[in-house]
């Protein structure tokens, strides 16, 4: 197809949603209202770690406008894990914490209260009395892995188990042999903090009982079928009874991928027969909704004097908080990319999903990769400095080519790093050496190999 016949590519096209945005006429999830709509508010754990010994609802039930409280006993399948849909085990997180069990992070839901007005729901929540036995909490990953640490999970240690291993492992070549032969060893430790996605619109949904026993759920989720399928599992209702309507999302950035609000709102709609609105307040969004994981990335590289990185050993700790949510997947992505867009013939990766009594972490823009890129690129600069080599040259020397094998045994088919760096150099007015300008990402054999 010639360029002339393209009607969209290369053209500036008005966005179809623009007019709705600038006139304020878009209907976002919370802009809807329904006759008889109830407001759902949550009684949350005031501490990081405790055993729930009892709940007293007697004063809450007297609040004018109180309609119904939901507790663990109301939830058909109360223990779930979001990635159970793709076979991740075990189920670990309570939708509502039962009496006798533990709350594992500050803000974990215990009781949900539906009331006629938001004010009544807030008042009733304030009147619920919890009997909690506070337990020692662990808030740091190195502490959580140390012997004798408080155990967060129900299976006895503080790591997620990958096929019988306590970390996600990649073994490629022989790093120890390569380290022994390397001219230099360059080590680095990189730490990142949890980050809240902080969309301007908070997480929330409205569940509405519909005809034929179905429930229509208006939600601002970023993952509509994740929400639908998990709701179906937790509430033990066939998916065809759930009609989820999404689409208009006031910012997400990964913060609206977890399945947090829909199951409870739908359950409340089932139990009361009325529409139920469950919307996070800003404080809930900031404190309870999952964040980007904090990471501690420790890298040891074996490097030759000519700039080739010949071995890399990476140990990465990911703080998933109290529950794993999307973090095991994030770690698998990390493990596959621990070498970055470079060819390193010997790679050893141990990436741990570490449980602590912090707010669960989960998805956020490029999760697993973004923080790794930060660490790997600072590490590249450290190597360049150690070797006294130009950083541009170091990147070209190590850039992967089509046909290279990545540590997780993926054959590279779409390498464009070299061409991208050449274009970037031109954009910033950096004059590359002629031999770097001539390079391409074509398979090494065509260039005579390494």
């Amino acid at each position, binding site marked *: 197809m010639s360029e002339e016949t393209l009607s969209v590519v290369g053209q500036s096209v008005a966005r179809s949603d*623009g007019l709705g945005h*600038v*006139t*304020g006429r878009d209907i976002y999830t919370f802009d809807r*209202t329904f006759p008889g709509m109830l407001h759902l508010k949550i009684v949350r754990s005031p501490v990081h770690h405790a055993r729930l010994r009892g709940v007293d609802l007697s004063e809450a039930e007297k609040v004018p406008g109180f309609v119904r409280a939901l507790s663990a006993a109301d939830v058909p399948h109360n223990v779930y894990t979001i990635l159970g849909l793709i076979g991740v085990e075990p189920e670990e997180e309570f939708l509502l914490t039962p009496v006798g069990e533990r709350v594992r992070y500050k803000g974990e839901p215990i009781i949900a209260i539906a009331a006629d007005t938001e004010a009544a729901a807030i008042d009733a929540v304030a009147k619920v009395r919890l009997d909690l036995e506070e337990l020692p909490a662990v808030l740091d990953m190195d502490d959580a892995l140390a012997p004798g640490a408080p155990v967060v999970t129900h299976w006895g240690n503080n790591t997620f188990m990958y096929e019988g291993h306590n970390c996600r492992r990649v073994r490629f070549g022989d790093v120890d042999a390569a380290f022994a032969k390397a001219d230099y060893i360059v080590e680095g430790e990189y730490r990142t903090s949890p980050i809240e*996605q902080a969309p*301007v619109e908070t997480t929330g949904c409205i569940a509405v009982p519909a005809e034929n026993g179905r429930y229509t759920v208006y939600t601002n989720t970023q993952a509509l079928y994740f929400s639908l399928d998990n709701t179906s599992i937790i509430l033990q209702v066939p998916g065809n009874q759930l009609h989820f309507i999404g689409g208009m999302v006031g910012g997400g950035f990964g913060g609206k991928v977890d399945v947090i609000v829909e199951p409870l709102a739908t359950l409340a709609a089932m139990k009361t027969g009325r529409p139920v609105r469950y919307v996070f307040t*800003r404080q809930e969004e900031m404190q309870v909704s999952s964040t980007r994981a904090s990471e501690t990335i420790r890298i040891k590289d074996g490097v030759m004097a000519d700039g080739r990185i010949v071995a890399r050993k990476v140990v990465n700790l990911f703080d998933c908080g109290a529950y794993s949510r999307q973090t095991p997947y994030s770690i698998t992505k990390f493990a596959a990319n621990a070498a970055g867009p470079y060819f390193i013939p010997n790679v050893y990766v141990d990436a741990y999903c570490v449980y602590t009594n912090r707010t669960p972490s989960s998805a956020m823009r490029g999760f697993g990769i973004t923080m790794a890129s930060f660490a790997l690129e600072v590490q590249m600069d450290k190597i360049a400095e150690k070797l006294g080599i130009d950083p541009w040259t170091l990147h070209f020397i190590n850039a992967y080519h089509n046909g290279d094998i990545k540590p997780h045994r993926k054959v590279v088919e779409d390498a464009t790093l070299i061409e991208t760096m050449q274009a970037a150099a031109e954009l910033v007015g950096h004059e590359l050496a002629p031999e770097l300008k001539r390079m391409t990402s074509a398979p090494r054999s065509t260039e005579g190999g390494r």
Partner: protein
Amino acid sequence: MASVIVNLEVSGRAVEIIAAPLTTLQSVLRNQLGMTSVKEGCRQGGCGSCTVLVDGEPMMSCLLPVEDVAGRKITTVEALSTPDHLDPIQRAFLDNNGYQCGYCTPGMEMIAKALLEHNPSPTRDEIVDALAGNICRCTGYQPIIDAIAAAASAGQEATR
């Protein structure tokens, strides 16, 4: 709890509402008057997505008891356009992609409206100052600043 009757003018329309004590203007606009351009982002005065004009001055409607604005003139984004005419500010936001998810857009437009009423030809710094209370998590602000600068130029053209 004794509800109160409050009269006010909202986007050119005289309204009488009944509200529980200390009900916010934001709640009345959204839940009673259906003016859902007034967004709920934080209800702490921190995000600016509920910005409205009270007698021409920008305020956070989430922090404002409706009783305190009895008799005042409230302007929301609904007042800016008609079905066949966009306000120059809306036009500029559209042309400059001054939005992404759109959630902060009405608040941004109201602060822009107030700014251009006070200062028809603001510098880029003055635009940035005016936007200090309005959070956008998508755009990185540049297209929004561009849009307001474009609206100001359009306004200058029109008055020339």
